[in-house]
């Protein structure tokens, strides 16, 4: 007690002690938020002891007062601040996680084995069912996948056309939901739900893979899954393992009470779950990357690599039939015609690269174009031509377009007063290094170019893709001399119209230009963006 004088009322006690309680409150808040100097810790300790004595006094003499509630809450907060877990920062936490996560996973190996077994059993059952009776696919394989396989293309194209880029986030969200369900059902249904989920997912996986295999898409699907599948499945299995571990504690609490056992196991489950969320996010990112990479499903541009571009140039010469996108950029192997015909429905992008205008350095590329067009008569090249209508038409536009065309190949047209737009092809293999800003579909819709508006450079993207009603052109101006959005939009509109009319003219010109046009898909923009 602070002194011999005993307070005669709550109010008197509060009046005497309020300042020290408030000081304690402030110290506790600082202790929770960070570190305290030694002097403050000693003060906190003393104040806490006195406040504890005050609480005891309040309880014994002035029970039921507001001050008692206040002090009880304050002391609980101080208690939490004093007894919180040590905070070591990110380094020690990561080191601890590095040590503890594998231990937690190993401690529950039977559950992991059970989860893997259930998934594998489901996959086997689904695969066998579809292999045995292909009609079973009608029940086991989702409709979009079936129609896509029937059309001979990957259903992942749908995801892309729906919302590229966003799909990565959506995938991450879906996967985390599934993993959380696998874990949560373990606790909620004592593992039965988790087991059912594992079996069901396995069934679906096996059925879809087998169905795709029967449709001749086995390798492409496996290729698509190779990047993210193992990571995603591992994370899913870990989540299921955590769920089954909690379920086991629920069924078999041992000497502990059921609640205590679940809680204890929950702590271990948290360690197992810790890597699941980042792993799923990474898997979704990979999946989205693969989707984006195969967005331009034109021949051989499945990966955003410069090497692929050079190979595409080889394709373009009409010597080698490109392997149509789905199998990856494996150019150089001849593909059967049946395989080729399957990709006709895939979105096909080509480039229309535009530069500031008066360039005359492209005469070489124009020769390439014409050379390509003469060699484009082979059936393989015609197949390519059928698919890559946009690329073809862009190339044809080079010849068809009026304007200040130089020695051929350079099509410049007055877009608006002061704006000149030049479409030109990429040069052939030898000249690749000094090509202009020629961009390919390999990086999805990203086609960078520049235009000169009233003397000032503008940067824009332009995307040509085949739509139901013919080629669709999107252009977007990012920066230009005029900073006003509506002027930029107007410029973009004009560009899009201009390019699309050029493309339309090219379509009329026929398939002859395709082989030459294919050269335009060289994904060389990284090297060549400098004007």
């Amino acid at each position: 007690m602070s002194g011999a004088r005993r307070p005669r009322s709550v109010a008197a006690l509060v009046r005497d002690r309020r300042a020290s309680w408030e000081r304690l409150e402030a110290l506790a808040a600082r202790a929770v938020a960070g570190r305290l100097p030694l002097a403050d810790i000693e003060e906190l300790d003393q104040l806490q002891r006195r406040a504890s004595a005050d609480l005891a006094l309040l309880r014994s003499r002035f029970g039921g007062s507001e001050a008692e509630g206040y002090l009880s809450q304050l002391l609980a907060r101080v208690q939490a601040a004093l007894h919180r877990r040590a905070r070591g920062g990110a380094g020690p936490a990561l080191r601890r996680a590095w040590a503890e996560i594998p231990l937690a996973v190993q401690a529950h190996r039977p559950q992991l084995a059970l989860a893997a077994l259930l998934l594998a059993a489901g996959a086997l059952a689904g695969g066998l069912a579809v292999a045995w009776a292909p009609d079973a696919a009608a029940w086991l394989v989702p409709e979009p996948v079936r129609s896509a396989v029937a059309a001979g293309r990957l259903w992942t194209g749908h995801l892309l056309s729906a919302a590229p880029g966003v799909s990565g986030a959506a995938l991450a969200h879906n996967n985390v939901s599934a993993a959380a369900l696998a874990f949560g059902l373990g606790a909620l249904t004592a593992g039965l739900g988790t087991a059912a989920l594992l079996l069901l997912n396995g069934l679906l996986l096996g059925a879809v893979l087998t169905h795709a295999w029967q449709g001749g898409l086995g390798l492409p699907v496996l290729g698509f899954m190779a990047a993210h599948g193992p990571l995603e499945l591992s994370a899913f299995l870990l989540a299921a393992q955590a769920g089954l571990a909690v379920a086991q504690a629920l069924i078999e609490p041992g000497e502990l009470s059921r609640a205590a056992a679940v809680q204890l196991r929950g702590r271990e489950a948290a360690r197992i779950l810790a890597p699941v969320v980042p792993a799923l996010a990474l898997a979704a990112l990979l999946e989205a990357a693969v989707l984006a990479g195969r967005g331009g499903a034109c021949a051989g541009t499945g990966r955003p690599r410069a090497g692929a571009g050079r190979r595409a140039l080889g394709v373009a010469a009409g010597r080698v039939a490109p392997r149509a996108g789905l199998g990856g950029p494996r150019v150089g192997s001849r593909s059967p015609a049946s395989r080729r015909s399957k990709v006709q429905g895939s979105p096909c992008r080509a480039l229309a690269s535009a530069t500031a205008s008066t360039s005359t350095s492209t005469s070489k590329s124009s020769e390439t174009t014409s050379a390509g067009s003469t060699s484009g008569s082979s059936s393989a090249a015609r197949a390519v031509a059928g698919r890559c209508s946009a690329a073809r038409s862009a190339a044809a536009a080079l010849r068809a377009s009026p304007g200040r065309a130089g020695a051929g190949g350079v099509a410049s047209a007055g877009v608006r007063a002061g704006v000149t737009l030049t479409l030109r092809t990429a040069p052939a293999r030898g000249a690749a290094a000094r090509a202009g800003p020629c961009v390919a579909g390999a990086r999805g819709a990203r086609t960078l170019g520049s235009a000169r508006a009233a003397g000032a450079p503008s940067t824009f993207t332009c995307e040509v893709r085949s739509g139901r009603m013919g080629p669709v052109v999107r252009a977007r101006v990012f920066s230009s001399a005029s900073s006003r959005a509506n002027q930029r939009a107007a410029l973009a509109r004009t560009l899009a119209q201009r390019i699309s009319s050029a493309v339309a003219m090219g379509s009329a010109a026929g398939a002859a230009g395709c082989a030459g046009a294919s050269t335009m898909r060289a994904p060389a923009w990284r090297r060549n963006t400098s004007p």
Partner: protein
Amino acid sequence: MPTPELRFQTAERVALTLELAGVGARALAWMADAGCLLLCWVTALLVYSFSGDLYDDVVALPWLGQLLLVAGVFLGGWGWDVAWEVLGQGRTPGKRLAGLRVVRVDGTPVGAGASLVRNLLRAVELPLAYAPAILAVALGARRQRLGDLVGGTLVIRERRYDLSRYLATPDGAAALGALRRRPLQPLPAADWEQLADFLRRRPELDPAARAALAARLVPALARRAGIDAGGLAPEPFLEALAAYHAEAG
């Protein structure tokens, strides 16, 4: 019905109680959080729509941008609660509004692991319209939903106490002179709290009810204090009584 609370003892042998939060406050906090999140997304989209076309721009984003976008959407959906609970000492904005706090069962601040578990388990309860959670919170002894049980956490309610009720009011100090010369017994705490409650709430009371209540309080409190009201009107007497207790003692 008494409020459910969690009792525990400190190292100093002081018994402390934590008031556990009920369904209503927790639902309010959840709705506020969902509203915050929705507002964030809508605002972001709205602001964005001034400058560009979402589709085109997402397509044109560089790698880092797409990565950040994925991370943002991901964190928006799942990380909101975890981040707030870990970094904000167990309080999301909604919980702050409702006066709630997530703590471990021993009253210490919640950590990343426990928060991750308790929030991941929402994925099971959300599709069932939170029915299991509502039942568990309403009926459970410690008001824990599934995520709380597995994560080893509690949601406690923190009340806002105002200690200034124990201070003397200027009116009371003026009326105190009349009482000062008489011997007074200290009021028991419960009576004192009743008196303080009346003085705090009287501006909101209907005048008739206020007068009636004051008239009922005066004889009871005067008897406890061992004096009679003398010539004082009811309310000045009560003010003086409060002031006496605030000042003396």
